[in-house]
């Protein structure tokens, strides 16, 4: 469904928006794009590969802290720091993936939760390296090739990041790898009988999605020009999970919808309930799990199927199973 033309159009439109926004709106827009990026990769890990992990924001943090430390403390030029950070993210993801994917279901959730908390503890106690509980601040994106990427130009970088993540998870999903991930989740015994190496599929899924989160973190580091432990804690991990469930787990459109909705809602709700939007999210989460586990996308599809039945809409073509 998504062609090169589609991506190009999206890139142009989304980037154009960047040039039209004021400072405050730009900040919101950038963060929204980052949340969408994270939701897309997390949706692949949780919704498609079926791994219940709370480590996504940890890798986001690893990417962010790594690039900042490389640039501000080791004084590496950006052209070097970026690939090294990506490498760090991939290696970190792999190192965690190998033991973690031996666990399933709830045990994986707990282990990644503990890992996430451990990361925060290490950040807090990291002294001068990590800036402790206050984190690192007052740094800037160094110039690349003599140019300073600021303002709308940097927003375009984030747009490209988001679209690249979308392309990555979309293509992986629609390939033999995506099917292997689903098969390994649905029925590991049958998957193995068909030749799927369940273990390495799990490792690969975890590594790729966590590395994507890390790369997003690297980009995030220069959005607020500050990184601190609290950003990468469990609160945001829960929020990410809520986004996926409420939007529609396993569907890319669901991830985007969930991210947009839950990110934008606090702004709309704040006149009513101040900072306590988490209460609403928690409630929606419970309601979604109980009454509409397929999320908002599920609601939309039921509506579509309903109109198919009454003849107002054509049925899906074979193979066009998912949005």
């Amino acid at each position: 469904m998504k062609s090169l033309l589609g991506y190009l159009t999206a890139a142009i439109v989304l980037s154009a928006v960047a040039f039209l926004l004021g400072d405050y709106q730009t900040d919101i827009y950038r963060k929204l794009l980052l949340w969408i990026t994270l939701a897309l990769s997390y949706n692949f890990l949780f919704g498609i590969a079926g791994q219940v992990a709370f480590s996504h924001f940890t890798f986001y943090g690893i990417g962010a802290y790594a690039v900042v430390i490389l640039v501000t403390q080791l004084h590496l030029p950006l052209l070097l720091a970026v690939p090294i950070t990506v490498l760090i993210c991939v290696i970190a993801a792999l190192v965690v993936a190998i033991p973690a994917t031996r666990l399933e279901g709830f045990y994986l959730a707990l282990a990644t939760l503990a890992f996430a908390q451990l990361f925060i503890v290490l950040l807090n106690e990291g002294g001068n390296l990590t800036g402790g509980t206050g984190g690192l601040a007052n740094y800037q994106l160094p110039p690349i090739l003599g140019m300073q990427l600021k303002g709308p130009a940097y927003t375009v970088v984030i747009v490209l990041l988001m679209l690249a993540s979308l392309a990555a998870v979309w293509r992986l999903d629609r390939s033999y790898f995506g099917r292997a991930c689903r098969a390994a989740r649905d029925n590991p015994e049958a998957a193995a009988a068909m030749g799927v190496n369940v273990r390495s599929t799990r490792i690969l899924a975890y590594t790729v999605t966590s590395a994507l989160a890390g790369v997003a973190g690297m980009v995030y580091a220069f959005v607020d020009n500050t990184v601190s432990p609290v950003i990468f804690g469990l609160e945001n991990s829960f929020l990410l999970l809520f986004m996926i469930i409420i939007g529609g787990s396993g569907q890319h459109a669901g991830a985007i919808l969930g991210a947009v909705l839950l990110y934008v809602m606090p702004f709309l709700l704040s006149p009513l309930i101040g900072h306590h939007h988490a209460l609403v999210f928690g409630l929606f989460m419970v309601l979604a799990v109980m009454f509409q586990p397929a999320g908002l996308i599920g609601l939309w599809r039921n509506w579509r199927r309903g109109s198919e039945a009454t003849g107002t809409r054509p049925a899906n073509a074979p193979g066009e199973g998912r949005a």
Partner: protein
Amino acid sequence: MSAPLLELRGLGRRFGGLQAVADLDLHVNAGEILGVIGPNGAGKSTTFNMIAGSIPPSAGEIWMDGQRMAQLAPHAFAARGILRTFQHNKPFESMTLCENVMVGMHTRVRYPLWQVLAGTPGSRRAEALAASKAMELLDFVGLGEWTAADVSTLSFGQGRLLEIARALAGEPRLILFDEPAAGLTASECERLAEIIRRIAARGIAVLLIEHDMHFLMALAERVAVLNFGRKIAEGTPAQVQQHPEVIQAYLGNVRSQPHA
């Protein structure tokens, strides 16, 4: 007479103190339908699982196409051309029928993952080809009209057909059927038998374990009978049915009545 495709030499398996299978010699030729029968506890399932790769043998060897299958992980068997169905259907519930079948092709994929990420025309063509091949296979087993259906809406018999299509997708040299007739109606059994014959006609070796005598005797070209983990008879269905030890093993209850 060409060499057999699958050969079991002195195959054995113990579970603690229990010798489930002992000293089993068996072979299947390409394009042949071999039936394996025996009373409950005879070791059919254990043998089946060893050939399919889900349990390792305790003794003996499995030779497939001139290569020894030793110390292989379960998922490696499909790559060597051994695919199987499950007695209790195990579909992938979150995927469409077409996608289920495409999982069967996992070992036949020839392009690396980076090409998937890059979206190269080669990988896209291969994907489209895979989808159309899956549709062909669904047609072959008779599920052609149901490709857009949800897996959960399939009847038991249809689920069985999906199992077969999925296993065929792996381009097997040997296909293993685990009690394929179990739970099927008479007409479904007929269709199943027809499908199995057509599979064998393509040169694929077929091994099936089955309790339904009527079904198996009509279909298999050769039959091996197990009892207490050992082979007690082998031959054509007619020969085996006359064999005194076989009759004894079943205590004279060889049911050749038509499937109810």
